[in-house]
């Protein structure tokens, strides 16, 4: 049981605008350390909504969310920000790099915010992560000088900088061509296998989902299948 890093219990979520609609219905599941989980389902089934609740960014829900056995409800906005900073790494469909900073600075930002290490150490770590992802040669370029696949890899490096408990991805390959999608998948795979990194990836790409260790299928706000591949 100690290996459970994320646990959701009976999560309900409603949208109130314009009419009250239930988008998540009694969602319960947990993620073990080192697991590579994908959440899949049709567009509008609530999988992204679930991810944002699990990521602590969306706090308007019913039910219990525990990260590292700590209940997330009742935590202040600043405490949740700290949890996101330290425990969760994000990869979005769009890379969301800050164009004002170069690649290495983008990767360093969450590390500097954490403030656990000195700037030199954070820079060293950032370079390590870029090396894992094979883009250390681009470290001093600006994001808009990179290709789409490279940008997404920088975003993954940024997600890794604080050695998070869990990496969350919202359609991380949604904007990429087949070749780059495979590249990103291989990176995730390697992180899960070589570094025991837990991953929770939301995707509608069935092929991607089928290659992960475990797939959760959602429909109309409910989990309809949860199986190991």
């Amino acid at each position, binding site marked *: 049981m100690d290996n459970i890093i994320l646990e959701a219990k009976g999560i309900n979520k409603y949208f109130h605008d314009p009419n009250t609609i239930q988008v998540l219905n009694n969602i319960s599941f947990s993620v073990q350390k080192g697991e590579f989980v994908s959440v899949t389902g049709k567009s509008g089934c609530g999988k992204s909504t679930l991810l*944002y609740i699990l990521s602590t960014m969306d706090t308007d829900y019913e039910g219990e969310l525990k990260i590292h056995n700590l209940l997330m409800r009742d935590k202040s906005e600043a405490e949740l920000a700290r949890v996101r900073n330290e425990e969760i790494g994000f990869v979005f469909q769009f890379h969301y790099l800050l164009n004002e900073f170069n690649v290495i600075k983008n990767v360093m930002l969450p590390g500097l915010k954490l403030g656990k290490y000195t700037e030199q150490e954070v820079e060293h770590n950032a370079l390590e992560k870029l090396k894992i992802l094979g883009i250390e040669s681009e470290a001093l370029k600006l994001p808009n000088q990179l290709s789409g696949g490279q940008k997404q890899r920088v975003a993954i490096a940024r997600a890794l900088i604080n050695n998070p408990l869990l990496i969350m991805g919202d359609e991380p390959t949604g904007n990429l061509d087949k070749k780059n999608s495979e590249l990103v998948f291989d990176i995730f795979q390697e992180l899960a296998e070589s570094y025991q990194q837990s991953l929770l990836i939301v995707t509608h790409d069935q092929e991607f989902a089928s290659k992960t260790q475990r797939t959760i299928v959602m429909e109309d706000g409910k989990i309809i299948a949860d199986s190991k591949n």
Partner: protein
Amino acid sequence: MKLKLIASISVSLLMARWRQTLVAAIGVTFSITMFIALLSFMGGLNKLLDGLVVNRTPHVRIYKEVKPTLVQPIDKSANFAESYNFVHSVKPKNERLDVLNSAAIIRALKQDKRVMGVAPKVITQVYYNVGSVDLMGVINGIDVEAEAKLFTFSDYVIAGNYIDLKNTPNSIVLGKGVAEKMLVQVGDIIQITSSKGQMVKLKVVGIFQSGLQEIDKVNSYSSLHTAQKIMGESNSFLTDIQVKLNDINLAPEMAKEFQALYGVDAIDIQTANSQFETGSFIRTLISYVVGITLLIVAGFGIYNILNMMIYEKMDSIAILKATGFSGSDVNRVFISIALSIGLFGGILGLIFGFGLSAIIGQIPFNTSALPTVKTYPIEYNLYFYLVAIVFSTVTTYFAGYLPARKASKIDPVVIIRGK
């Protein structure tokens, strides 16, 4: 560490929109420049106008007023102590017009630590004889050196040398208006008739211009001794003792004290010239109001640029929040952007303001009222600069406050889902 991080994010956001940022900063610079120039100019003007009166007016003037005795003999009678006494048509006694025991008073005043200096004076009514016409006039007998030192007498002597008044016996410095009416110049001899009917010949050694025409048309200066001679009085005869204090604010209190202590009449400068203080106050108020209005306008500029920046950088703010920056971190980023625009613009404004007031100070300004003033008056006062920088910082803080709060409240989920 954290401050440095926030600073570096602020700087990069600033640099991303440096043109608009510069325009906002220029707005602050412009308003601070005008604020400084306006206050310096108004301050200079105030000093000049106050100087017209304050520099020439004793802080406390001790004199003898001709008035009926307050306590009538009947009030002293024990028989009528309980009664209300009516005495009609009381007249002043025929008393001497000089300050009694003046030598002792001057000696005591000179030892008083609050007193900067003492200048005795004899004021007497005369007639200037111009052919068959007699012009009304007043001769002020002064201690030339004390008057020059305490009341900048020398500044107002526009022809001749003021010190000749002391060195030449029976000499006079005529008011400009009087001299014009009598058609005399420095070196001429004029004749006057004293209030007691005595005719005296005096040599004109100078002409003075005070800037107040009414004074220049009537007044003249002579040495104490000459004035006493014209009046036919001894050399202890003084009608006024002028006192200049180290701290002008003590004047009302000290006037009362002298009145009680020496049994004389004393009036302080604040009571005698209250209208000047009101004028200065209003002028200062107007310059502050104009300056602050300019700053508020600049504040709206900053508000606009920050709002625009927030709309543009919505994605960046969202990702910062998603990766663990809290609302207050984002708030600090935008507040520090606003403050740095304010500080940068403000400091430039101080420099330009100093420059502008220095330029104004070089513009020729000749007025017959003020013989010593050749250029526009400027007051250089560190206080104005302090007020300006504090105002600019405070205004920009408030201009940044609302946009920063808005940025801190941005919901990353809404932004990221919207893509």
